[in-house]
């Protein structure tokens, strides 16, 4: 990003404003969906999908991950892998057959 011209930055700024509007709309959608009469698994799935879209918008545009050097992508790939491991730790408890 360090070689961006003035024109490039002005284009970026337009994108930032569009992302801002999209994030606002999705925030309203998040709250709206919570008031719908949905079952818990569907509500959780929907909420996480919307949050993931918002999170990707922040990461891709505000954090410039849409166009970044490969050293950062590799770092984040390893991070994502270990994050997934963390998220699956609770599953291990269902394998515990001794305490029930």
């Amino acid at each position, binding site marked *: 990003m360090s070689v961006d011209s003035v024109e490039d930055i002005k284009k970026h700024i337009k994108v930032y404003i569009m992302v801002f509007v999209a994030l606002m709309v999705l925030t309203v959608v998040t709250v709206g969906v919570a008031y719908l009469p949905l079952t818990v698994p569907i509500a959780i799935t929907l909420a996480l999908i919307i*949050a993931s879209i918002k999170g990707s918008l922040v990461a891709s545009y505000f954090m410039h991950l849409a166009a970044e050097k490969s050293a*950062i992508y590799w770092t984040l790939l390893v991070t994502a892998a270990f994050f997934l491991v963390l998220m699956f*730790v609770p599953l291990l408890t269902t394998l515990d057959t001794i305490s029930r």
Partner: protein
Amino acid sequence: MEIPYTVNTRADTGLNNVKLGIWLFLASEVMLFGGLFSSYVLLRVGAEPGTWPLGAEILSIPLATFNTIVLIASSVTMVMAWASLKLGNLGKYKLYMGSTVALALVFLVVKAFEYADKFSHHLYPSESTFLGIYFLITGLHGLHIVGGVIVNSYFLFPGVKMWHTAPERFTNRIEAAGLYWHFVDLVWIFLFPVLYLL
């Protein structure tokens, strides 16, 4: 001795050390919050059926929605502060950075009201597992906001003088501070539905 690669890119990483450094730090932050998210899942799934409360019944959705909007807005002003420096406009930088700090303070004040309201109803972390993990995660997130306010205030007031001696290096510092700030915003984007709405 001068700190190497604050502006120049290293041939092997293709990056300056500022950016690689902040991303490595953020990777460790992903694991910190990831561990707590994982704990939340375990506590919720492991709770006796019917005992886990709906966040909305205890917490205030309007206040949290307002805070979500405030934090997203502060992310926009932060990225605009960096873009202003890229365009060489120090005046606009100060305006946007000042707004970022102000919005962060608004977030903290609203959060303080939320906490005070819970305490006034005797809802402490010891009340339930849900409140325990709620106060732990939002408290840690709040500390991250406080940290961001301190660093951004430094770059707004005393730290800004670097702009006059090493503008490119200063711009990179703001980019790194921005990456941290967007990460804190990103964590909240997940915390909000998980704790308040589900």
